[in-house]
């Protein structure tokens, strides 16, 4: 997994709540068997007209949005389908972090497992970032995961909380499977234990 230590990048604002993973990556793009190549399809129904030409009013088609790597959005971001393609598509476009008042559980895990940082901030803080993102030309944020801070060039400094185990994995770029396999002995012991919930699946 790609580590996340610090990142500075342009901000794109999507002023909507409940942005579901069907919007982040519509189903017509889920048929690939690779983890790559989804970036050009991120938000595709909002980003392109049915004939495939870009909608000029959509933020990711505007000059600043095209190079955005920090997404600011409304609450319950990533709800709905478990498709990890949503995280792949956001990262494929170039996003390294998403900031919102809340995130759906599965999306949060998927993002973390791919090195996409999700930052939960109180609604009013997100509003400040969203407003600056909309109004300040070339607005950028600098995110420091080590110190858990977000700063901008206008003197704003925000601290954020994050699950400690998630932070540790992101900073080090740790592979969750590798971490779990350190407990291989425990898993084997569990499998050999007396717990038999399903007689036919665990033949005696």
């Amino acid at each position: 997994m790609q580590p996340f230590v610090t990142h500075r990048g342009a901000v794109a604002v999507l002023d909507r709540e409940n942005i579901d993973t069907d919007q982040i990556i519509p189903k017509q793009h889920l048929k690939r068997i690779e983890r790559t190549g989804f970036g050009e399809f991120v938000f595709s129904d909002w980003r392109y007209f049915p004939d495939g030409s870009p909608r000029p009013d959509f933020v990711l088609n505007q000059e600043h949005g095209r190079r955005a790597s920090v997404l600011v959005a409304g609450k319950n971001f990533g709800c709905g389908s478990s498709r990890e393609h949503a995280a792949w598509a956001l990262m494929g476009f170039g996003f390294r972090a998403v900031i919102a008042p809340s995130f759906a559980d599965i999306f949060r895990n998927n993002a973390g497992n791919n090195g996409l940082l999700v930052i939960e901030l109180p609604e009013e803080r997100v509003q400040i970032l969203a407003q600056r993102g909309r109004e300040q030309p070339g607005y950028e944020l600098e995110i420091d995961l080590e110190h858990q801070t977000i700063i901008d060039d206008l003197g704003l400094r925000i601290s954020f909380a994050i699950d400690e185990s998630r932070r540790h994995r992101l900073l080090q770029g740790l592979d969750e499977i590798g971490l779990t396999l350190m407990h291989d002995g425990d898993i084997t012991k569990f499998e050999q234990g007396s717990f038999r919930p399903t007689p036919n699946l665990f033949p005696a």
Partner: protein
Amino acid sequence: MKTGKTLFDKVWDAHVVVERGSEPSLLYVDLHLVHEVTSPQAFEGLRLAGRKVRRPDLTFATVDHNIPTTADERFHIKDQIAAQQIATLRRNCETADIPLFDVGSGRQGIVHVIGPELGLTQPGMTVVCGDSHTSTHGAFGALAFGIGTSEIEHVLATQCVAQHKPRSMRVVVSGSLPQGTCAKDLALEIIRQIGTDGGTGYVLEYAGEAVRYLGMEQRMTLCNMSIECGARAGMIAPDETTFAYLKGRPYAPAPDAWDKAVASWRSLATDSDATFDNEIALDGSRLEPIVTWGTNPSMSVPVTARIPKPESARTASERAAMQAALDYMGLRPETAIEDIRIDRVFIGSCTNGRLEDLRSAAKVLRGYKIDSAVAALVVPGSEAVKRAAEAEELDRIFTEAGAQWREPGCSMCLGMNPDILAPKQRCASTSNRNFEGRQGREGRTHLVSPALAAASAVAGHFVDVRGWQYKEA
């Protein structure tokens, strides 16, 4: 002071392989279900890391998401990328020795339909699948939740998931559901009350008289929709209804192990002195048939109501969301739901594609013709459901009414196969999500129960199925 445990606590505790302080616990997985869309990258990841599938005997696969539903095309898929995805699953299952319930095997179907009907899903188990509607299996008192592809790879390699323990919420439904309503209406009502993120971070337990009265297929519908309020999972304590459903199914405990299994399943129910982190209560006897009008499953009203005005919203962002939803749906505030005309009807999906659902729709359609302006698609949830429905001649009722009777798969619930809405077409759908574009770009989805979908197909617009004149055979 020692307090009692909830159903969720009991299943969780029995599966913790190792607790690691502030790190997520490792939870053992009893049953891992796999389908073609979210698994290829997981198998590829394993291969690149030189890792093996740890427990192919606890892993089962099927094809459902992008499989066509016409008899000829399901064996000769025209969409080359979809065909490649399915071929990849077949290859991966063969290499790893994972049982695959393939098209034509007699056991293929939507992953959340076949798990229970084969008896793979059992009380007290942990069940995961790369699909958010894995919550369905909680109807058996299993802890079942959807995972992403990296987590699929993790389960394939280690047979564990790394999880922080979610909080618990009990949803108590008193009374019994009125005639003309069902678990789908109950699920939509709960989501309407607590919102699309009201369950985020929680595992729900559905309890109360109304839930006890529900049959297994209705319970599955209820648990299926748990994810639509953001919940990690939804569970129902196993009881006689559960045991009767499971007995004799192919993967259920064999006769000599049955009594022991049932005894252990009985001990799973929440202790009377257990506490929950949160609790809500509903009066089931006041439930009405529900129709969604917006672009998430919480935007709904009773079928007899009118579309709300955005001005009624509590916050500015909610008002904006309502307006955007109405614009997308091509609807005006204050329109009576029963005045909304429909173009399409979809009966099927992991929410409502089981035999009871088809029976309930067929009962409404018997002796009627579908409105000439409406095209209706009925897609059984599995090959077994299709056989059972045909044995009861439900297929004849559907086709005589003018609906299309198709082959099993996820179909128009998410439109990954050729079954999609044309732009601006309006659909009464028994599926689970009315997100923008879900059933086809610019398609307009209204979530309803199977009976209400069937009645609306006949009327050409939404109707209150409580007043339906049923015709006998």
